[in-house]
Structures are given as structure tokens and as C-alpha cells.
């Protein structure tokens, strides 16, 4: 049985088609990143998956149930993007209350260990830092030992160290055989923490595969060199070049034919220093897929 199956799902808000004929199947035990720029339809997709919004057309199944049934059965745990913690309660009380709502929860100590909250159990929820609060929200998401864990931009409010620790916790939970779906617009997070990346834009899947596969499908390469004070005009017209970016005095050319571009570059009469070429990183692949300027 699939963990998640979206079949031709459509969701319209007024004139905007937030999700447009969305098809996606995720197998049990996979860790999948939903990657897309802001406004791509990630949060709407997740809201529908959790039964918080109803599709206008198409269907969603979670372990063979409707979303609402799956929530009621305790099969899903989620960390939503927005929201503060409920105030006036200790961390331990909150987590213990939520875990007992589920038929087959994790032990409290296990949750505290996974979310790295053992030191904070007696702290009131309104006395936590942003990163600590995110850990509590992660704890609430895993408390019921859900088969499917859904995280909507989970690290948005975290500093670098917290992010690192957070993903370690997430991977530890995934390693127990659970299915994970997380939305992010951080490309590196998707590459590091998911075994499959689904790129969405304008409410549709535009690429689907491992990080390496996605990089390969675009076929883009990057050529960098120090331009100095030389004019940038004409770089765009060189053979193979798809885009030009000048940052400080470094030129970055994206090309789908690096050999031809280099040839043309040397023939152009410019003085080329510090030349580097590399395979596109995921960010460049992503930009080329979504057609977005960073």
C-alpha cells in the first residue's frame, strides 16, 4: 500500500489555481522533499494532505484512507508552518497530553530524546526561544508515533546549529521505517535529507527524482570567471549561454553546451582569469527548472 497518493488534485482559491492537476505517489518508508519557491503550492498541498483543506477535484489517499480518516486513526503527525505553541503549560504536560490522543504513541522519554527536549521538560511553553519552540512542535508531530510525518518548512525559524540538530532528529525518526514528507525552499535541505525530491511550481510537479537525477535532467553547467572592469555586453550572445549573472566582478554563465561556450569565450578577446566550470549545483538546476531569478 502506498503511503500517499494524490490523483489529479486541483485546488483553486478565487482566480488562483494553487494546485493544478497534481499527481504524486509516495511509497511507505520514503523520505520525500517537496521543493519549490514560495507560492508554488507546497502549503496548499500539505493542507489538503492533512484534511485541513478539501480538494476541488481529484482525490488524496493516505495509507488507503481519506485524509480525515487517517488523521482520526492517528496515522499522521504534522508540524505546520504557522502557529505559536499554546501558552500556560509546561513542555512535559503539552507533549504528554498530545501523545495520549493517539492509539499507539511513543514513550514520553523517547519523544524527549528524539526532539532533544529532556532539559526543557519543566519549562513553560511561553518561556522558550524560537528554536526550542520548534523542537517542541517537532515533538508534538512525532508524539503519536505516526506512520506518516509531515513537516511544512520546519526549519524556517531556526539558526544553523538548530537546523543541523533538527535534521538529525528527523532522520532518526525516518530510520525507524516511517514515511516523511517535508516542504522546503532550501535546496540544500532537500538534497541532504530526502531520498527523493519532488520539485513543484505553479501547483504542478515539474521534476521528480533523487538530487543527482534532478541535477542531471537539466543538463546545465556553470562557467565562472573574473570579469574585472571589462564590459559584460555580449556574454549573453555567446554560444550555449542560457543566462548571465554578474556579481561583484565575477561573471557566472549558465550554459547547456560548455564546450561551445568556452570556445566562444576565448574567441571573444576578453581577458579570462580565474576560470572555473562545474556541473550545476542543485540550486542552479532548480532555478533552471522553475525559471525563477534568485
Amino acid at each position, binding site marked *: 500500500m502506498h503511503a500517499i497518493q494524490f490523483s489529479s488534485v486541483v485546488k483553486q482559491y478565487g482566480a488562483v489555481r494553487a494546485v493544478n492537476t497534481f499527481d504524486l505517489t509516495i511509497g511507505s518508508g520514503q523520505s520525500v522533499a517537496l521543493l519549490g519557491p514560495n507560492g508554488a503550492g507546497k502549503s496548499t498541498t500539505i493542507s489538503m494532505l492533512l484534511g485541513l483543506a478539501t480538494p476541488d477535484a481529484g482525490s488524496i489517499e493516505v495509507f488507503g484512507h481519506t485524509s480525515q480518516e487517517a488523521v482520526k486513526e492517528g496515522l499522521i503527525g504534522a508540524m505546520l508552518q504557522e502557529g505559536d505553541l499554546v501558552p500556560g503549560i509546561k513542555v512535559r504536560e503539552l507533549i504528554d497530553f498530545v501523545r*495520549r490522543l493517539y492509539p499507539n504513541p511513543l514513550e514520553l522519554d523517547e519523544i524527549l530524546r528524539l526532539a532533544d527536549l529532556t532539559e526543557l521538560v519543566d519549562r513553560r511553553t511561553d518561556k522558550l526561544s524560537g528554536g526550542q519552540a520548534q523542537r517542541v512542535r517537532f515533538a508534538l508531530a512525532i508524539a503519536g508515533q505516526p506512520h506518516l510525518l509531515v513537516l511544512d518548512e520546519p526549519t524556517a525559524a531556526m539558526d544553523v546549529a538548530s537546523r543541523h540538530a533538527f535534521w538529525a532528529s528527523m532522520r532518526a525518526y525516518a530510520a525507524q521505517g516511517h514515511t516523511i514528507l517535508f516542504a522546503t525552499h532550501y535546496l540544500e535541505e532537500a538534497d541532504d535529507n530526502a531520498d527523493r525530491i519532488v520539485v513543484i511550481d505553479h501547483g504542478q510537479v515539474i521534476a521528480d527524482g533523487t538530487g543527482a537525477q534532478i541535477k542531471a535532467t537539466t543538463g546545465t553547467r556553470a562557467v565562472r570567471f573574473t570579469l574585472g572592469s571589462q564590459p559584460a555586453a555580449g556574454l549573453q550572445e555567446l554560444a550555449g549561454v542560457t543566462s548571465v549573472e554578474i556579481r561583484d566582478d565575477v561573471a557566472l554563465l549558465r550554459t547547456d553546451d560548455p564546450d561551445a561556450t568556452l570556445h566562444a569565450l576565448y574567441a571573444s578577446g576578453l581577458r579570462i582569469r580565474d576560470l572555473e566550470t562545474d556541473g550545476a549545483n542543485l540550486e542552479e538546476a532548480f532555478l533552471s527548472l522553475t525559471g525563477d531569478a534568485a
Partner: protein
Amino acid sequence: MSATLRYTKLEVQRILREPRFAIFTIAVPLALFMVDASIFKSSGGFDGIAIAKYLMVSMAVFGAISAALNATGARLAEERRNGWLRQLDITPLSPWSVVTAKTLAAMTLTLPAAALIYLFGALTQGVTLEAWQWLALLLASWLGSLPFAALGVLIGSAGNVDTSQPLVTGSMFFLNIFGGVFIPLQVLPRAMGHIATILPSNRYAELGWAIADGRAPSAVGITVLAAWTVGLCVTGVLAYRRGSVRT
């Protein structure tokens, strides 16, 4: 313990930790009790009930209405905003359990508010009642607070964070002034007495006055209170469902 009762307990704990709540539901009614008692001390009483006893019931009603409205009202609106209700929505706890627990918690929180007023009445105002009367007062205080808890759910579901607190405060003053709770109706213009008889606050207090006086409550009074209870519970639940509607 069922999930609904565990959530009720959690709500009660959370609310009791708020100093603001204790001030509005206990300190303010106690202060008004002392003020009213000194203003009306030369009056023989109202409706044949000794003045201290009469005011004690009024102030317990004031505290209980305040507790029921403040335990729901703006808190609920805030929880719709801050995502807590959404968080609960993605757990197996049903929305019906959530609204039931909130209502039960609000009703339960009327008990300390009323009980402290009774204690104050007995210890400092010389009110003496039979044991069954004290128990009946507490029971009436608890049961009769249901329409006010439902009104709070209605306000917190229909209003937002900015509008719900003024609505709670406005409802509280309206119900307490026009219901003859703050000041005995007998000393107010007669027209107000007519308004009072159709208000749940007056009928809630009437229940207490009857018990304190050792009489059976009036059938009309109970009918009016029951009608408000049904009406406010239905609209409160509908508003709650609408306020947390799935899109």
C-alpha cells in the same frame, strides 16, 4: 479518563495559572460585594431575603458569569489565531470533543469563583445556610453557567482577537447590570425589571436566591434559563464549526 476529560483538565490548569483570570473572576466580584454590602447595609433585604444573603448570591453569579465568559471568549479567538486549534485538528481529538472540553472547563471554573464568594459571605457577612443549601448553590452555579460558557464559545468563534474581548466585556456588563446582578433591581427604574426577567443572568441569579431562601425555584425562571441554554449552545457550536471551517 477520556480524551475530552483530559483536555478539560488541561484547560482548567492553563486558565488557573493566569493571574488576570483570578482578578476578574474572584477579586473584582469580592470587591463589589464589599462595596454593595456597605451601600445597602441599612436596607432590610430584597424579595424577603436578608441583604447579605441576597448580595452573596448576586456576586457569586457575577463571578461565575465572568469566569464562564473569560474562560472561552477571547482565549478561543486567540487559539484560532495562534494555530493551537489547527494543531488539535490534526490529532485524533475531534472538534466536538474540543468544544465540549472548553465548555466543561469554563463551567468548572465558575466553581472556585462562586465558592470563594460563598466562603466570604459565610465568614464575614454572617450568612448562614444549611449544608444542602450550600451544595445546591454550587450545583446550580455549575449547571446554570452553561449558557454563559456557550455565549463565550459563540463570541470567541464569531469574533477575532481584537473584537472578542470587547464583546465579552460588553456582554458581561449588559448581563450583570440589566439582569439585576450588580445592583438589586428593586432600587433601579421599574422598566429595567421587565428587561431583567427575560435575561439568563437574572434567571441564573434567581435560581440562587431561591435556594438561599429555602424555596423551590420558579418554573418560569428555569424555562427561561433552559431556553437560553439551548439557543446559545446551538449557535455556539455552529459558530465554532464555522470559525474553524475547512476550506
